């Protein structure tokens, strides 16, 4: 019987090693797998390269991971958000590096990584400072830059409901980067509010087919970042 359930967040992230590249789903707090991130903080892996659209807020979730000094490099499009104070400090002091990637290019690089496409061309960033260091090439009289696919050792994502095979449905705009990251990591770890039997989900409506999912952890009542931040929470 195919059953990708794992007992706990701790067990699901137990083998993340120092120096790993970890994609973390979410756009702001929507889709942020807070419980998996906190388990990763407990687990202790360091020198991580983290891929996320942002850098978290307050001192919980992704921001807490960064604050704990575990992240040597962020790859993201928008590291500056409301209540985002942890990353700016570490970035200015040179302790966390930043690779700034336009949001659509970031999504497409992850998609390419998952699709076995090592590189593609896009017009995004042509003629801007973010073109620097990229190869430029003309197709049909327009200029494009070469961008490289992005893969990871782990993806940590959150969904609404999963079946034992790892077929996933998300909640509204929490789908964002998660459904793409699931395809691009060697090991994709999902926290879900609910697990159902295969056949309970409509096969026409599945967003992430189980082939992309390796571990499922049930977190029935996940924390909301904005609530924790409003409460002044910090982790650990």
């Amino acid at each position, binding site marked *: 019987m195919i059953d990708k359930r794992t007992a706990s967040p701790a067990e699901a992230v137990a083998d993340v090693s120092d120096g790993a590249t970890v994609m973390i789903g979410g*756009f702001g707090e929507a889709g942020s797998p807070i419980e998996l991130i906190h388990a990763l903080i407990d687990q202790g892996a360091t020198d991580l390269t983290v891929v996320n659209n942002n850098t978290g807020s307050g001192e919980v979730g992704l921001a807490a991971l960064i604050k704990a000094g575990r992240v040597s490099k962020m790859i993201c499009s*928008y590291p500056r958000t409301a209540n985002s104070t942890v990353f700016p400090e570490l970035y*200015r002091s040179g302790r966390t590096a930043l690779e700034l990637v336009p949001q659509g*290019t970031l999504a497409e690089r992850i998609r390419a990584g998952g699709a076995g496409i090592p590189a593609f061309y896009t017009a995004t960033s042509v003629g801007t400072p973010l073109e620097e260091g990229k190869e430029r090439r003309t197709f049909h009289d327009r200029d494009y830059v070469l961008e490289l696919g992005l893969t990871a050792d782990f993806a940590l994502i959150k969904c609404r409901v999963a079946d034992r095979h790892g077929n996933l449905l998300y909640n*509204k705009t929490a789908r964002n980067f998660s459904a793409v990251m699931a395809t691009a990591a060697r090991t994709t770890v999902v926290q879900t509010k609910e697990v159902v039997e295969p056949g309970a989900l409509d096969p026409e409506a599945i967003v992430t087919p189980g082939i992309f999912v390796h571990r499922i952890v049930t977190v029935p009542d996940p924390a909301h970042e*904005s*609530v924790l931040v409003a409460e002044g929470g910090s982790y650990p």
Partner: protein
Amino acid sequence: MSDTVGLTRDEMAERAALDIPNGAYVNLGIGIPELVARHVPEGREFIYHTENGLLGMGPSPAPGEGDPELINAGKRQVTALPGAAYFHHADSFVMIRGGHLDLCVLGALQVSQRGDLANWSTGAPDAIPAVGGAMDLVAGVDTIFVITQHTTRDGQPKLVEECTYPLTGPAAVDRIYTDLAVIDITPDGFQLVELSPGVDYDYVAERTGAPLIPIRSTP
């Protein structure tokens, strides 16, 4: 003229909305552009796209009825209208990069007379660079409207010969809506299209950092 000359933020958004064709698929940037959604002209319907994965975005939810996982690109809670669709980020930028959106309304730090847009960074050495989806939008969407105050808080022109801030994209902007005027980007530079009530050509031209072509008189 007084300090209160020209349009308010809300009036600028209303004016821009007048130029959006019926049935258009539209992405609204953060800030004044968000206000455009309040001003759909009578008899028209626009479908709003937010790059974090929703087509058919509706207004803010009633207090207490929002979902923290139903947000817009500015990370504010929104709603989904009948006919909405959710999708992931790669698919969302297929819409943007692939030229499927009709129009995007963005804010600006500077716009050059060639339509170069700078709206993501002042280039200050201690700034945390953050670009989001702006470069994808200007590279992918056919028609780019900019809504912006005509000058900075300390009176410097935002419509300039050459942008001094880092570019979001070259030759990107089609039309600019400011508190003082509506201005097109043309091969000849800034072309005045319309003056706000109580504003004259000289007042706008003085506050514009490049030549401003007067409204063509009807022949």
